[in-house]
């Protein structure tokens, strides 16, 4: 596959790994956070940590939009789905996320009409084909996905479709990163910046991280070599005592983002004053809702959504895992009570969740690359 296979070449990986190892200062530990769930997934899927020296730890961040959905919102969605004549449509990732009384999957088994779609446009198609039903789209995702929901709303409006609405759970990445930066539990050295979110918002929004917090940021692609190269670029900045935002994924990410996409979001959505993030608590101006002039497409207005706040199960430590404070295996219920088959928390359910990634792919004795310094001593 073009633009994919070239960035999966193992030989180039060895070269990068050597360079990365050579940049490690003897005796120093490095903590780099990859914000985006897609990066977490790639790292484990390709066994990337095998290429890194012991002194570099990758900390998995909160950029998994499924992982941060509180149980109460899942309950709300199931409530919506259970209304008469409603067809609920959702990405596959949501199907097994547990609410307080089960996930979409369980509701479906009990007879609720919940269907998996690959695009919000598929949801609109279902609305067109079922004029006597009310179709709701469970919109999740960061700024990567929000433009697609926005364009679908615009299309529905243009076509005068009156049986389609969106249950909007889009969240924004910068407040989450800021919450991490301000968290006293965590000392990070740098950030592997989200790749696809940046195609929409561009690279400027991360400048405050480098400027005000002194941490380098490298916006990274999703192939293994992209991530390794980004780590190399971060280590280079650290060695040179610089902290700026760099764009490793320049073949896809424009520095200024996608203006059309941002306009579509601006036209159809507005920032909520605050929103609850699972594990991170309430964060202000961190999520989107449908704008007033598109109220006809806002499921929260069309239906009576209970909006009950549901506390996470006591045993669940997703919050700390999402902040990168705990590694998946450090969670008390990891792998025993909480498994991909019987998930307690969202980190285990989503294919991008740190716990699922570690359980499904990474649960192994690892062999890492030794640091150049250590190697030269032996």
């Amino acid at each position, binding site marked *: *596959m073009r633009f*994919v296979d070239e960035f*999966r*070449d*193992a030989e180039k*990986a*060895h070269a990068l*790994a*050597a360079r990365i*190892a050579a940049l490690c200062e003897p005796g120093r530990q490095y903590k780099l956070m990859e914000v985006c769930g897609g990066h977490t997934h790639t790292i*484990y*899927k*390709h*066994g*990337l*940590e*095998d*290429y890194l*020296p*012991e002194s570099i730890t990758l900390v998995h961040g909160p950029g998994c939009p499924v992982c941060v959905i509180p149980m109460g919102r899942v309950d709300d969605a199931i409530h919506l789905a259970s209304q008469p004549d409603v067809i609920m449509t959702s990405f*596959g990732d949501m*199907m*097994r996320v547990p609410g307080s009384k089960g996930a979409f*999957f*369980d509701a*479906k*088994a*009990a007879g609720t009409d919940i269907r998996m779609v*690959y695009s919000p446009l*598929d949801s609109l198609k279902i609305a067109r084909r079922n004029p006597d039903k009310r179709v709701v789209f469970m919109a999740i995702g960061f700024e990567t996905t929000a433009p697609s929901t926005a364009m679908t709303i615009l299309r529905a409006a243009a076509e005068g479709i009156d049986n389609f609405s969106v249950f909007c759970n889009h969240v924004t990445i910068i407040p989450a990163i800021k919450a991490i930066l301000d968290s006293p539990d965590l000392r990070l050295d740098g950030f592997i910046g989200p790749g696809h979110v940046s195609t929409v918002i561009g690279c400027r929004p991360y400048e405050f991280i480098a400027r005000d917090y002194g941490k380098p940021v490298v916006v990274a692609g999703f192939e*293994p070599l992209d991530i390794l190269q980004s780590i190399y670029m971060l280590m280079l900045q650290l060695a040179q005592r610089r902290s700026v935002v760099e764009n490793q994924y320049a073949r896809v990410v424009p520095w200024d983002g996608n203006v059309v996409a941002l306009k579509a979001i601006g036209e159809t959505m507005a920032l909520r004053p605050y929103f609850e993030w699972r594990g991170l608590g309430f964060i202000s101006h961190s999520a989107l809702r449908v704008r007033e002039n598109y109220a006809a497409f806002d499921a929260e207005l069309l239906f009576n959504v209970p909006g009950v706040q549901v506390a996470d199960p006591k045993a669940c430590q997703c919050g700390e895992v999402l902040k990168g404070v705990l*590694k998946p*295996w*450090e969670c008390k219920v*990891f*792998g*025993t009570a909480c*498994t*991909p*088959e*019987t998930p307690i928390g969202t980190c285990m359910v989503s*294919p991008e969740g740190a716990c699922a990634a570690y*359980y*499904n*792919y*990474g*649960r*192994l*004795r*690892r*062999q*890492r*690359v*030794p640091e*150049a310094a*250590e*190697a*030269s001593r*032996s």
Partner: protein
Amino acid sequence: MTPGAAHGGTTQDSSERGAAANPAAAVKENELPAHAHGHAPTVSDPEQRVLDRIDRARRRRPRVREERITMSHGSGGKASQTLIEAVFLEAFRNPLLEPLDDAARMDVGASRLAFTTDSFVVSPLFFPGGNIGDLAVNGTVNDLSVAGATPLYLSAGFILEEGLPVADLTKIVSTMRAAAEQAAVHVITGDTKVVERGKADGCYINTAGVGVIEHDTTLGVAQARPGDAIIVSGPIGDHGVTIMLARGELDIEADVTSDTAALNGLVAGLLSAVHGVHAMRDATRGGVATILNEIARAADVGVVVAEKDIPVRAEVRGAAELLGIDPMYVACEGRLVAVVDNAAADAALTAIRAHPLGAQAGIIGYVTDGPAGIVQLKTAFGGTRIVDLLVGDPLPRIC
């Protein structure tokens, strides 16, 4: 200092290349504490304790926690397995059932027979490369073949939906006749039921098959031994992807067709050419990944496969990438996985490749002696990851 260490990856890389050809090297990689590389293992004690706890949890007795059946129970992955063990095996338990192989083996008089059953609920009924009819015949024939039996007789029970066009049924049945002729089996008994409109999705077919075991081999995934080679008979994922696209909901067009085929000729060729076949499995629901896990679990061994050695057609890979699914979990209907003694591996591969259905066969990996019960994949990129049993159901109703 060994020359390799300065370059970080090199030592590892050569041992990984070694692992593909020599399973002994793969085994050594995972040994603790002293090993060839000369640096300490990187998993800390607390992490190792957690990994051990997880291992114990995974070996616990299966229990179905759900109150209702969900689509996961039919996907061929973890939930399916749990259901089978906790409900069916629990209720029917007997020595002939316990192996839970593709077919049961029993002695009747002086003959050793294999007996299997299967149900086919695929939607849509007709798809590129075949229809529910040839799936039914080929699937049953294959379950008997991989048990080491020569397939002889099939039953065919039909559950028909009120409103199904008779022309469709005729087409399905004539396809079955052709498939049966091709496989040299006969349908000797059957049944028909009709249910109301809205049930049975057109047509469901249940089959049973009987064959006679002529080779004096003990076949079964529990027979896998460290050092055994694992062979796949051709490119994976064709059937499952074909069905997903044929449903027409995804607006994806591609030149993929189902690989449905009867493998009895290929198996006969393999078993007569080579001694040392320890197990064969028909790669259907759950895909190759599920079989690899079954091997690791049943024989309590490790399995290591190499991503670059697993044959996948470009279009299947493209469709899977677009949909975010892994071809290793996607169903095939005309592929087998064979576990063969190391010494017989090359001869087995030659025998399989000699048959047209096995032209693209290849050795994808080896059985190792640890960590037990775990399937590892060496990625094309050079790293390692686990291939666990499927959770959830990305491809509902494909066979």
